[in-house]
């Protein structure tokens, strides 16, 4: 873990001096995380890919301003979250994802379970995307990237207390939006 951090610090230093290969290595390391974050923020595959590219370009341009006080990942995720929000504002409307864009959790789904799975995914996606930006960012970083409250606070530059309250608020809203679905999920779990 420590050697990984040292290696990353070295790569960041090299990239700050204009080394494109070093930056390419950082991109390979963090691309999936950034894509995941922006996808959960945007709710659309193509928007997410554009937002992720934009985030990495912005990060390259702002690389000289990065201070290693916070982790590179936190710094990058902050740019990614802002990029996703900007992208959504530009698009104005939320584009529905094509069904074939999804990985299906069940390797051999029947037509009914496939439909149910797609519907559930669509419900969850819409519920997340309609959250307020600030709460959505905190929720995505916690639920999908598994960041600690401290890391989220560093990433979004807010106090830990605010992370907690935004997360509670996001979960409260989501529970209301997904009430029926959560109820059926709980029933299925008990069967």
């Amino acid at each position: 873990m420590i050697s990984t951090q040292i290696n990353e610090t070295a790569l960041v230093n090299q990239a700050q001096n204009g080394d494109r290969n070093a930056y390419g290595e950082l991109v390979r390391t963090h691309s999936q995380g950034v894509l995941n974050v922006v996808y959960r923020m945007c709710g659309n595959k193509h928007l997410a890919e554009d937002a992720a590219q934009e985030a990495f370009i912005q990060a390259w341009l702002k690389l000289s301003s990065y201070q290693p006080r916070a982790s590179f990942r936190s710094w990058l995720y902050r740019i990614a979250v802002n990029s996703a929000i900007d992208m959504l504002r530009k698009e104005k409307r939320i584009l529905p994802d094509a069904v074939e864009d999804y990985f299906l959790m069940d390797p051999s789904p029947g037509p009914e379970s496939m439909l149910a799975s797609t519907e559930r995914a669509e419900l969850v996606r819409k519920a997340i995307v309609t959250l307020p930006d600030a709460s959505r960012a905190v929720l995505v970083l916690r639920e999908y990237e598994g960041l600690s409250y401290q890391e989220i606070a560093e990433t979004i530059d807010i106090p830990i207390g605010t992370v907690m309250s935004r997360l509670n608020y996001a979960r409260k809203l989501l529970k209301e939006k997904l009430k029926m679905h959560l109820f059926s999920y709980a029933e299925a779990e008990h069967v």
Partner: protein
Amino acid sequence: MSDHILEQLGPYLDGELHGKSLQKVKLHLTECITCQEEYTSLENLSATLQEAPLPDFPSPEDFASDLALLLPRKPALPIREKALEFGWWLAPIGLIAIWMFISTTNLVSGAITFANSLGVLNDTSTWLVSGSAPETYWSAALGQFGFLSGNNLQIAEMAEAITRITIPQIVWQVSLATLYLSWMAIWWARHERQGLGQALES
């Protein structure tokens, strides 16, 4: 029954509670049905969110390759480095400007002195030459002590006067030329190194 601890259930679920807070929530959950239900609903919500699939994104290799084509040539420099870079390109212009200023000053000074020696300048223009005539300390001192006299004293005074004018000029010009050539040498070395770096990258 104690008060509900609904606000603490999220941090508890996320593993963010420690010590006494953690023990308090654990104990409370064993005895409060409302908080138990709330905690279960939070667990279900988290499981539902985790269940939502991700689309098929490009692999890290493909993503990095595509991005490499879009990246601008160099990352932006910080302000301090920008100032240094600006100063670096300003240096030769500054040296040339200093050289031109000194040369012009010397030329004008020489012209005024020459004009004065020809008697072209009238009384109102004499302030231009006041102080411009070279002083001759050493030859005057040698004359006072009787070491030099007549033509020898005049030649010595002239030699001292010429030395006093020309040596500083030569020193200035050589210094400026050295600085300028040093800048050119550093620029050439940097240019060569960048060329080598690009050749290695390609």
